[in-house]
Each structure stands twice: as structure tokens, then as C-alpha cells.
């Protein structure tokens, strides 16, 4: 019988990283025993792989060997002195002795020196029982410290508690430099150094500043690497060493880091990145590692709530009453207004199993296809564009592919903020010598940061992506740099010819597009030649591509660029959409779009409808349903009356807030299933408490199509996991669902979806994670797609004419607003604002170029009105030269900022993905909040009072 959890024990540390993959094996003798290891393995690692644990302190297998602590010394026949086994490569025929009197004495002497300047408070120390220094003192047999303790020491060094998540106690530091090296090699921020020399040596964040004031991004790699208590998580300090663990997957971004949840009872002591995580390889960012406190925040709603209208107090009710109330409302509305008057929005943060059930409920229980997901407002153009050109609505590579790239192009993405762990891997490759091209209106951090500099930064004018990508491809073809063999072999010839004629038209030349895009022709030519040269060139892109009126066109132009340079179908290349949310890829895979059943099959296909209809026991609708923006339009028109929203906050995240709130107010019934009373829930008449990722079993699918397990480590606070809530609602509607465990839901998905047939919980346990497609052709999944042939057979070049957006600057609105994200806050901020992350970003600010600010009499810190044709809000100004004059920038993590009051209903032609990245605005100095903000504050107070009265019925506020 397999155990539910694993007992806590420190992950096995092999001392030095595994060598580069090689088929050559070598044999050496360690302590008289013959061992065989891969060529390139260090002596330290060769011993550890065979159960021989040479003492070590500065060595750890996540970092390159350093050779400073001098503990891992060994004797090697034929080599002088006592070499450090961490920096010595194992050679064929070597004879190593890891333990004898000479080595033992040397090691004891080394430990003696360390302990002579170390506090002896082990019994009250946070890492008591889990400290490498303690272990090594024991391992070398230290019995006395002949120097005594009266001399100069560091024992009175003060602690740095500035960072809310970990404590730096320099009195315990052994200056092994693991933290410094982790910050360099793993994270790539280079925030730490060893200041001074000899006795004066000390770990220094930036210019010897407290951690919070330094360049530290709080990723925690240093804390994880520290072998003593010097850098310890505050959770560990407060709660003690964990007692059991479970592997799970992060619920923040699309990197999908694998974590070990380290527990005491049902409390999380700390989240430690899983070394064997296939996406993150033992690294994480501030959010995944530290910002999990929202799951137990006091704002969590634990009982179902109902009310008749949004202007009355909530009533706490039982689950049974809530389901009956909801079902009666839905059926009543459908009877009155028609079956198409209701719909649902699936969550891109809930599990695959949960989103599958929501779309199943809509199609089978509501009887229509009015289901959509937040991918509508982010990567729906990816789905459209990549399906059209390559044949599959997903990225082509695994994240690890970046380690084989020679040229990396980043378009409309800011990975150091939005996909931090992947960015760290990318920076590692860039430091090794890969070249970088950044296409972004802003000088994102990646353009120039420690040891990383873009060869080209094409700072284009917002909305001109297609013109720029077309110009790049024009150069490649006009200079004869295209991959002729690849095109001939792998792509449809007629489509290629049509596209070739189109792209070679002089209107697409860099010289012709320069005026429109603002990018000098020579820069485009240089970037194009670099990209075409490769040999391995990869494209990574984000919402700066998709959230535009030509989002889908840009995606197709990117696919064209990859195909014409032969950069598909192997590692190191590819088209890589950086999907934002932890499960937005999964949500799309699970059939959340109104026109597609799971596996991206159109609802009009009778065979697909028959397949699902048979399994689900119903006849399915063939008419595509309403997309989210269409639902809002239909609500305002009085035709759409009820909405079931699971884990989404459209009132904050969707554009044109005035229109969204008008639509939500027009509904007769809105059911919100979420953790907190978010902005959307303020317009709801039913609130079903949701469960966080710690409270349920399931799977998430990240941006590399990797399906990873989510494991329950605590009981759901409201008593039901999210999938159970949907199931009970379905039953109340008269549609039976009787799953006993999410694995049964995955089994059903696998039965019905060709790209998932090989997926099961048993296989996930065995392999750790699986990249779809996973079926008979690829039993263990598919890291790299389109090898040999495209999913659609031959790749299809698509003509991509540049069509300027309607959103142009005018005299009234002379600036362009573009929006984005920041590292410490996540999306609408519902989770991260309820953690200490707000210490880094407690408000959204307006970044404005000093030139534009000066023209308007705006100084740093001023309140600034931001107005567009859609609405008006007020933000604090920050002067920045990262953006070009004429462009302003803000984030949308705080509801009060009202960033989306200003964004418009302009959208991508093919998918209606909103054009968040281009809004014509004016900015001006103000002395008070906007009317919307005043109304919003009033409405929020009203709704919070309604909630308070439900939770504390007999009190007055």
C-alpha cells in the first residue's frame, strides 16, 4: 500500500551538478570499490551516486563547484596533496581514498576553524536537526575546538529581518558563498556578493543594504542553498522543521514549478522547489515559494452565500440550499428567456479536471455552448494562429529547449517579471553566449541586466508588431537567407509561393515600414540576419503579441518566420507562447472555448458531438456559443441572464470596466465560485466558496503542455473541492455526475481526447509529469512537437497584411497606454495582495517618460488623471525612461487603480482578444480621485457591508 505523504527528509544532494549528457562511461575505484559513472562527473558526485558521502559544505548539486570549504578533500593515487573532490573530474582508472587518518585530521581541523566562530545554540536554532554544518561536525568526528571562543568573532552580528519571508542571520554564516553563487547561477540577478576579505568577509546584498532595499528579487534560491540557519524561511523559524511532504504544482504562472509542500499537520511550513521538477529544476520565484499565505487568509469565505439582488445583504446557507437555489434560478431563467440565456466561464487557475467539469456542465446540463475561459483575453490568438499554420494550438517546445538555442527572440513578453523561473534559465543560456533580440516598446529588464545584453532592442511603436515581423521576414527572403530545403520538404508549396510574393512586396521592407513602426531599417536588417543565421533560433512571445487588434495575425507571422528559417521540429528552436496562468493551457485543452469540445475539435463536427454525446448521455448543441465579450453584449441587450463564473474576476481583468459592470448588473443571476469576495463577486447573487491548490487533487498544464500533479495537503476550508462543487451543482440541475476522485475525471478525458489517451494518474505518479500529446505514438509524452512533420502534415504559410489599429492617437488623446505585469503581484492580485508581496508593489503606478511629464507639469509622485474614450481613472506617476516618449505604462494588479476603466472594446479580429496593449489616452495632473474611483469605493463599501452582515448577523458595523 503506498503512503499518502512522504516523511520529511532533506533531498539527496550529489554535491555537484550532473555532467552534460554523454554516452561515454568511465570506471574508477573509490575506497577499493569499482564504480562506473558518466564521463565528466566529479569525484564527489561519483562517490555520492554510489552511496559514499564525502563530507562537504560549499558544494551542492544545484551550483557549479567552488572548492572553498576544503572539507571534501580526498587522496587520489598519483595526485599530489589532497585534492578537493568537488573540483576534480573523475577519470577512468582513478584510485580514490575518501577516508584515512590524514584526510580525517585535515577535515577535523577545517571544522574546528568553522566552529570557533559559530554560535553554539544548536538546540534553539531553526535548523536544529536539519543543518549541514551540524552534520559535518558529526561526520568528521569533531570533539574539541582548541582555539577556544574568547577571540574575535562574528557572534554579535545583527539579524536582517527586512524581507518579510526570510531572515538573514550573519552570525551563523560560514561564508561558503552558496548564496552568492545561487543568486548568480540559478536566479541570474547577481544581487549578492562577498564583501571584504579574510576575517572581514561577509555576505552583502547589493551595497551592503538590507535585503528588502537591495536588488534581491526574493526568489529564495539563496535560502534554499544555505547549509546553515543563516538564511532561513520565517515559516521554518516560527514552526520548526517539517514532518511530512507532498509534491505539488504552483498555482501562479504558466511555468508550473514543481514544489515540495513541507508540512506540519495541515499547515504549510514552507514550499521548497522540487529539484526533480521538469519545468523548474529546483528553482522558483517569490510568488510560488513564499506567497501561499492567501490560502489561509482571513478573507477566505467558508460558507455558501445567496441573495436575490446585489443590493441586499448576503445570507449564509448550507451547500444543499445553495445548490437548490442556484439550480432553480438557472432553470427558471432558461424557461423564461430560452436555453441560450445562460452560460459559464471556466477558470484558468483551477485544475484540468475542474474546468472539464464546468464546460461539461454548460454543454450537458445547460444545453448550450456558452462557455469560455480567460484565454479569451490573453492567448486566444495563439490558439487561432498556431492551429492555422502548424496544426496545433500550443507551443512547440519544452522549456529546456532554450539551453540549445543560439539566438533567442523575445517579442511582447517580459519573462523576468511574468515567467521568472523560465527567464532565469534563459539568462543562463544568454550568459553562455546565446544572442538576444528583444521586440518591445519598453526597455524591459532583459534588454540590459547583469551579464545579459540584447544585441538588438527593436523598440517599436505599440500596435505595429505585424509590420515589424513582416519586415524581418522580408529581409530574410530578399537576402536569400531562408531555409530552402526545410520549406520545400515540410511546407505547402502553393501557400508558400503566395506568401513569398506577399512578403517580398516592397511595402513590407524595413525602409518602408520604418516611419510607421519607429524602428530604424538597419536595426531590422541586423536582427533579421542574426535570427536567420542561428543555427538554432527560437521565438518566445507573450501578451504583447496577442492582446492586439492583429494578435492572431502576429502569431501567424511569427509561425511564418519560424517556418521560413527552418526553426521548428528540434530542440533549441520553435514557437513558444508564454502562457500566463498556471492552467490556462489546460483550460483551453479541456474544451473551454465556445466553438470547440475538448481537444480543440469544432462543435459542428457530428462525429465529435456523437463521441461526447454518447459518453455524456445527451445530444449536444452544434451551434458555437458566445464568447465572453459576446456574453457581456448579450447581457446588456437583455438576452443573456445568468452566468456561472468559476475562479475568474472579469470585473477587474476584462477591458472597458464600465461595459463589463453594466453587463454584470444586467444579469438576473450570477454565480461566482471563488476563494474571496473579488470584484466580480460584488455583482453576484450566489457565492460558492472555492478551494485553493493546497486543498484539492488534480492536474495543471503549463505553457509547455506539461501536465503536472496537484496534491491535496489540507482539507478544503469550505468542505468541498472545486470539482465537487461543480458536480453537486450539476446534480441539482438534474444532470448526474458521480465522480469519486479527480483521477476518474482524467480517465474520462483520456478516453475522449486523442492527445490525452495515454494520460493517467498512475503514469503521472510514475513519470512525475507528462507533456501532451501522450498516446500510442508517444507513450511518455512529447517534449518537442512537429518533428519530421507538422501536426497538420505540411506547415501552412499564411499571408499577414498589416492593418493599422483603429485606436489611433488624436489631439484629445495623444499618448498610447500599454499595460503589463510585475514580478511580485499576480494578475488581478486576489492572491498576492493577501500576502506580504504587497511590500514590493502596494499600488499600480503610471510610468511616464520625463519628456511627456514635463510637458504636462507632472512630477514624480503626482496624482495623474488617465483618460481614454472609454473612461477615466487616477494613478500616481513615476518617471521612467524605459518607455519611449508618447507611450505610458501601468499594471492592473489593484482593483482601485481602474486600469481597465480606460481600456477599450477594441479586439483581435479573429478571436476578440482585447487590445489591452494599445489605448489612446491623455494624462494630466489632478487633485482628487476620478468619479469612477469614488463610485467604486462607495460600491465596495456597500458590498463589504453586505458580506459582513452575513458573517456577523447580530452586529452593527
Amino acid at each position, binding site marked *: 500500500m503506498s503512503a499518502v505523504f512522504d516523511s520529511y527528509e532533506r533531498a539527496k544532494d550529489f554535491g555537484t551538478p550532473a555532467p552534460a549528457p554523454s554516452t561515454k562511461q568511465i570506471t574508477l575505484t573509490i575506497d577499493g570499490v569499482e564504480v562506473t559513472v558518466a564521463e565528466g562527473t566529479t569525484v564527489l558526485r561519483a562517490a555520492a551516486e554510489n552511496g559514499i558521502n564525502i563530507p562537504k559544505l560549499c558544494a551542492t548539486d544545484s551550483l557549479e563547484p567552488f572548492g572553498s570549504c576544503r572539507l571534501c578533500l580526498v587522496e587520489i593515487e598519483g595526485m599530489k596533496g589532497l585534492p578537493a573532490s568537488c573540483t576534480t573530474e573523475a577519470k577512468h582508472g582513478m584510485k580514490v581514498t575518501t577516508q584515512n587518518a590524514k584526510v580525517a585530521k585535515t577535515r577535523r581541523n577545517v571544522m574546528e576553524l568553522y566552529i570557533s566562530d559559530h554560535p553554539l545554540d544548536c538546540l534553539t536554532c531553526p535548523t536544529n536537526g536539519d543543518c549541514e554544518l551540524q552534520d559535518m561536525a558529526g561526520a568528521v568526528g569533531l570533539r574539541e575546538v582548541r582555539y577556544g571562543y574568547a577571540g574575535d568573532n562574528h557572534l554579535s552580528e545583527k539579524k536582517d529581518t527586512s524581507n518579510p519571508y526570510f531572515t538573514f542571520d550573519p552570525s551563523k554564516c560560514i561564508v561558503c558563498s552558496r548564496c552568492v553563487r545561487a543568486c548568480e547561477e540559478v536566479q541570474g540577478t547577481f544581487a549578492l556578493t562577498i564583501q571584504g576579505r579574510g576575517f572581514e568577509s561577509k555576505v552583502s546584498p547589493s551595497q551592503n543594504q538590507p535585503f528588502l532595499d537591495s536588488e534581491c528579487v526574493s526568489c529564495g534560491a539563496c535560502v534554499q542553498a544555505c547549509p546553515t540557519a543563516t538564511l532561513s524561511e520565517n515559516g521554518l523559524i516560527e514552526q520548526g522543521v517539517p514532518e511530512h511532504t507532498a509534491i505539488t504544482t504552483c498555482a501562479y504562472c504558466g511555468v508550473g514549478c514543481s514544489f515540495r509542500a513541507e508540512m506540519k499537520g495541515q499547515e504549510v511550513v514552507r514550499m521548497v522547489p522540487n529539484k526533480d521538477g521538469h519545468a523548474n529544476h529546483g528553482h522558483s520565484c517569490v510568488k510560488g515559494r513564499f506567497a501561499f499565505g492567501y490560502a489561509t487568509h482571513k478573507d477566505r469565505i467558508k460558507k455558501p452565500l445567496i441573495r436575490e439582488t446585489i443590493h441586499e445583504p448576503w445570507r449564509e446557507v448550507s451547500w444543499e440550499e445553495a445548490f437548490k437555489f442556484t439550480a432553480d434560478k438557472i432553470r427558471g431563467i432558461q424557461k423564461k428567456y430560452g436555453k*441560450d440565456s445562460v452560460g459559464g466561464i471556466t477558470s484558468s487557475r483551477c485544475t484540468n479536471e475542474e474546468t472539464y467539469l464546468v464546460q461539461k456542465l454548460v454543454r450537458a446540463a445547460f444545453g448550450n455552448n456558452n462557455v469560455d475561459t480567460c484565454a479569451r483575453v490573453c492567448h486566444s490568438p495563439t490558439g487561432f494562429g498556431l492551429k492555422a499554420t502548424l496544426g496545433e494550438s500550443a507551443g512547440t517546445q519544452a522549456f529546456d529547449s532554450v539551453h540549445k538555442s543560439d539566438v533567442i527572440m523575445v517579442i511582447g513578453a517580459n519573462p523576468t517579471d511574468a515567467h521568472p523561473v523560465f527567464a532565469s534559465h534563459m539568462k543562463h543560456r544568454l550568459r553562455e553566449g546565446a544572442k538576444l533580440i528583444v521586440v518591445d516598446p519598453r526597455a524591459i529588464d532583459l534588454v540590459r541586466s547583469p551579464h545579459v545584453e540584447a544585441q538588438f532592442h527593436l523598440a517599436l511603436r505599440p500596435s505595429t508588431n505585424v509590420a515589424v515581423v513582416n519586415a524581418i521576414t522580408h529581409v530574410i527572403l530578399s537576402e536569400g537567407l531562408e531555409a530552402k530545403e526545410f520549406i520545400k520538404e515540410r511546407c505547402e508549396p502553393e501557400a508558400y509561393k503566395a506568401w513569398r510574393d506577399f512578403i517580398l512586396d516592397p511595402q513590407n521592407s524595413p525602409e518602408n515600414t520604418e516611419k510607421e513602426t519607429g524602428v530604424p531599417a538597419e536595426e531590422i536588417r541586423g536582427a533579421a540576419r542574426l535570427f536567420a543565421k542561428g543555427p538554432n533560433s527560437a521565438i518566445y512571445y507573450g501578451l504583447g503579441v496577442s492582446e492586439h487588434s492583429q494578435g492572431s495575425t502576429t502569431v501567424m507571422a511569427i509561425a511564418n518566420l519560424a517556418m521560413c528559417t527552418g526553426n521548428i521540429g528540434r530542440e533549441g528552436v520553435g514557437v513558444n507562447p508564454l502562457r500566463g496562468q498556471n492552467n490556462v493551457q489546460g483550460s483551453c485543452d479541456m474544451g473551454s472555448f*465556445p*466553438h470547440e469540445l475538448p481537444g480543440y475539435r469544432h462543435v459542428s463536427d457530428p462525429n465529435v458531438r456523437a463521441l461526447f454525446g454518447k459518453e455524456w448521455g445527451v445530444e449536444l448543441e452544434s451551434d*458555437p456559443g458566445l464568447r465572453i465579450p459576446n456574453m457581456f*453584449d448579450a447581457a446588456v441587450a437583455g*438576452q443573456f441572464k445568468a452566468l456561472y463564473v468559476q475562479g475568474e474576476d472579469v470585473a477587474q481583468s476584462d477591458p472597458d470596466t464600465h461595459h463589463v459592470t453594466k453587463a454584470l448588473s444586467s444579469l438576473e443571476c450570477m454565480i461566482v465560485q471563488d476563494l474571496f469576495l473579488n470584484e466580480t463577486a460584488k455583482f453576484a447573487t450566489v457565492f460558492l466558496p472555492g478551494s485553493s491548490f493546497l486543498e484539492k487533487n488534480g492536474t495543471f498544464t503549463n505553457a509547455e503542455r506539461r501536465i503536472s500533479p496537484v496534491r491535496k495537503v489540507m482539507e478544503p476550508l469550505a468542505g468541498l473541492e472545486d470539482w465537487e462543487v461543480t458536480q453537486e451543482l450539476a446534480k441539482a440541475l438534474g444532470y448526474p455526475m458521480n465522480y469519486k476522485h479527480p483521477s476518474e475525471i482524467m480517465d474520462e478525458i483520456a478516453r475522449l481526447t486523442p492527445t490525452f489517451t495515454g494520460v493517467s494518474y498512475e503514469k503521472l505518479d510514475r513519470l512525475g509529469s507528462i507533456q501532451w500529446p501522450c498516446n500510442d505514438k508517444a507513450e511518455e509524452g512529447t517534449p518537442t512537437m512537429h518533428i519530421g512533420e507538422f501536426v497538420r502534415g505540411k506547415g501552412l504559410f499564411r499571408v499577414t497584411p498589416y492593418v493599422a489599429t483603429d485606436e489611433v492617437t488624436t489631439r484629445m488623446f495623444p499618448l498610447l497606454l500599454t499595460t503589463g505585469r510585475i514580478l511580485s503581484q499576480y494578475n488581478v492580485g486576489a492572491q498576492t495582495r493577501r500576502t506580504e508581496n504587497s511590500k514590493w508593489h502596494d499600488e499600480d503606478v503610471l510610468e511616464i517618460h520625463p519628456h511627456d511629464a514635463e510637458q504636462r507639469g507632472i512630477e514624480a509622485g503626482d496624482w495623474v488623471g488617465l483618460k481614454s474614450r472609454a473612461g477615466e481613472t487616477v494613478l500616481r506617476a513615476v518617471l521612467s525612461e524605459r518607455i519611449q516618449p508618447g507611450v505610458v505604462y501601468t499594471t492592473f494588479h489593484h482593483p482601485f487603480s481602474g486600469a481597465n476603466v480606460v481600456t477599450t472594446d477594441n479586439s483581435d479580429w479573429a478571436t476578440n482578444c482585447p487590445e489591452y496593449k494599445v489605448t489612446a489616452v491623455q494624462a494630466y495632473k489632478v487633485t482628487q480621485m476620478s468619479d469612477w474611483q469614488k463610485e467604486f469605493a462607495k460600491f465596495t463599501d456597500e458590498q463589504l457591508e453586505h458580506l459582513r452582515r452575513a458573517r456577523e448577523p447580530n452586529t452593527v458595523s
Partner: protein
Amino acid sequence: MDVEKLTRMANQIAANLDYGSDKEKVALATADHLKRFWNSTMCAAIVEGHQKKLIDLTPIAGRAVDLLAEQKKKSA
């Protein structure tokens, strides 16, 4: 349904698919797109608006809506 909005959307689709001299082909591609991605209520609203000359579709978008109306009639 806000038929003005639907009109803008249809015009935008047609403008983005507009390439080459064969405008009938572009209109057909536009009609296919509407059929594939638009809910039938939306399709009916734009067909009605166009047939009653209440909305301002571009020539290609207008032709696409005519083709859409024909296709919908055939499959009804």
C-alpha cells in the same frame, strides 16, 4: 445584440482577410470565419441588419454576410 458592434467586427474580419485581387475569395473566407466562430444569434442579427440596410458593412463584409445568409439557409 449590439448590431453596430457586430458590424465593426465583421468589417474588421474582412479587412484582415483582404489580400489579393480575388475579392469573392476573401468574402468567402470571411463568411467561413463568421460561421465557424459566431453564435447563430449573432449571425442572424447581422444578416437581418444587412438585409434591412440598417448597418454599414464594407463591400467585402457585405458580400460575406450575403454568403453567410445563403449558407445558413441551406443548412437550415
